């Protein structure tokens, strides 16, 4: 109902909140703030609990002995890997979905995983089982990251700059290229001996034990640096989420900002992929949870929530599956399946894309 101009002042007079308390903010009102704080607290509790569980549960050595510390140290590396992966996927997905203005698509579809698979399969195809070993090591880790970055940068500069820039076409070309790479990999895989294939499969599925401790000193600073930049850009991201026209109206060079964001996203995704292997729906899951719990436009509120969701989900399932049920390899598969189910659920909700 539209109020007429005359009765507007009258209603303004009866308003509960005094004029000076009218403030704009990412969280609306006390209730919203309380929900946000509560969710954050619960997530932190889950994270702390599973962190402690992973570190100390069922350590066979006597407490405090050298062996005990050794095992705890190895477990700490797993936790750091989980943290890096959660940070990369959560921030990359939220930023990506903002840049492409769509909350269903994830950066995982852009062919990062297919490229990783193709590299790994190609090495095993060419060099046999030693091929897998040849890809282990810090320089190789960076090389794989660089190849993935190169593909992404090539795509963005080719399809997003210039007169005919169109983000959906860029995405679709990325997806199709990924599919083509995928069929190349499948072809190479069928030429492998079963034992070669077994070795390869272990690398092809996101697996937290793929990450080697020597990568972490490099991976952690890179991930943190990118995360800090995205954090600083958060106000811009808030505006970009309003779409191209509104962002331009508010004074942003939309095309340039989107390319910049996507470049950072590709650093994060290729880092996580080179670290543990391709994961497509972890990011989707964490981002979806962050939107659901946070219910805000503010990326400074969404990013931490997304990271916490990712860390809580990954570490809790790692703890339960690895230390309680002794099925550590299945962690990422399970998380991916859950993410896939959530994706299906979101797909069939009514909405606008």
């Amino acid at each position: 109902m539209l109020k007429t101009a005359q009765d507007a002042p009258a209603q303004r007079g009866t308003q509960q909140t005094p004029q000076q308390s009218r403030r704009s903010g990412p969280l609306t009102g006390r209730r919203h703030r309380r929900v946000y704080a509560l969710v954050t607290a619960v997530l932190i509790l889950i994270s702390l609990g599973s962190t402690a569980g992973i570190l100390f549960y069922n350590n066979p050595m006597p407490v405090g002995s050298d062996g005990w510390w050794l095992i705890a140290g190895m477990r700490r590396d797993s936790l750091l890997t989980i943290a890096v992966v959660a940070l990369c996927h959560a921030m990359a997905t939220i930023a990506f979905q903002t840049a492409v203005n769509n909350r269903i698509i994830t950066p995982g579809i852009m062919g990062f995983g297919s490229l990783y698979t193709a590299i790994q399969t190609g090495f095993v195809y060419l060099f046999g089982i030693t091929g897998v070993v040849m890809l282990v090591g810090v320089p190789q880790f960076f090389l794989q990251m660089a190849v993935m970055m190169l593909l992404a940068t090539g795509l963005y500069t080719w399809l997003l700059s210039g007169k005919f820039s169109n983000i959906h076409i860029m995405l679709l070309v990325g997806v199709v290229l990924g599919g083509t790479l995928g069929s190349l990999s499948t072809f190479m895989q069928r030429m492998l001996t079963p034992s070669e294939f077994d070795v390869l499969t272990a690398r092809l599925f996101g697996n937290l034990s793929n990450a080697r401790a020597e990568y972490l000193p490099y991976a952690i600073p890179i991930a943190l640096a990118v995360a800090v930049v995205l954090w600083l850009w958060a106000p811009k991201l808030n505006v970009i989420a309003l779409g191209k026209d509104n962002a331009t109206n508010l004074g942003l060079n939309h095309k340039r900002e989107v390319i910049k964001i996507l470049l950072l996203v590709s650093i994060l995704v290729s880092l996580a992929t080179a670290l543990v292997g391709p994961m497509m729906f972890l990011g989707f899951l964490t981002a979806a949870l962050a939107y659901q719990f946070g219910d805000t436009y503010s990326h400074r509120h969404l990013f931490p929530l997304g990271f916490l969701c990712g860390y809580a989900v990954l570490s809790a399932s790692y703890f339960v599956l690895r230390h309680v049920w002794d099925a550590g390899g299945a962690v990422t598969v399970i998380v991916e399946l859950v993410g896939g189910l959530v994706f299906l659920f979101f797909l069939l909700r009514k909405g606008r894309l």
Partner: protein
Amino acid sequence: MISLTDVSKAYSSSVSIGPVSVDIDAGGITALVGPNGAGKSTILTMIGRLLSLDSGRIEVAGHDVVNTPSKAIAKIISVLRQENHFVTRLTVRQLVSFGRFPYSKGRLTLGDEKYISEAIDFLDLTDLEDRYLDQLSGGQRQRAYVAMVLAQNTDYVLLDEPLNNLDMQHAVAMMKQLRRAADELDRTVVIVLHDINFAAHYSDRILAMKDGQVVEHGTPAEIMRDDVLTRVFNTDVQVVPGPNGPLAVYY
């Protein structure tokens, strides 16, 4: 003043614009009218630098819209397109606060809050400011968008068919509010309208387009004539005196 010099644009196979050269004076409301596909919205979005030009030059208050940094333009022109959907859920006040982004860069000062409150009050959204956009009616939502561009506090406000999907009551209310924005807040409002009678009653100048060209430009009195409107709209139009000024009758 908004001045277009030899502006042209091949928008799609069916719509191509120009070359258009026209000056729109500062102050008041200027309405862009014309048949479908005439290029009204295209011209408006090009002035608002949401769409690039193929050739020519557009200046707003002496600034070239293509070469001046987007940030600076955002303090001179604000532009609102007709379709707005967000992936995020926003309250009215959050939406309007985005209008201050060119100044605040996301860090709202007390001064910004004052502008935001004023824009909200100006469009009678005071009681709705904490409601989410998806809880509002179409007319209320349209006012929230307009409040955002008003909070941007620019001299020039460009609106693409703001009356679309509004019923009679809300359309009239919207036009009255825009009229007040022009008169009380000293904004130059350029607006694409479908209804020639709305344009005649509420605007100071009418710019009629057809086939990508500006065919008429003048005061409502100059445009509201049988021969002019018949030519512009490709259909027989008769202008008859009404209780509040001339009325175009085309059926």
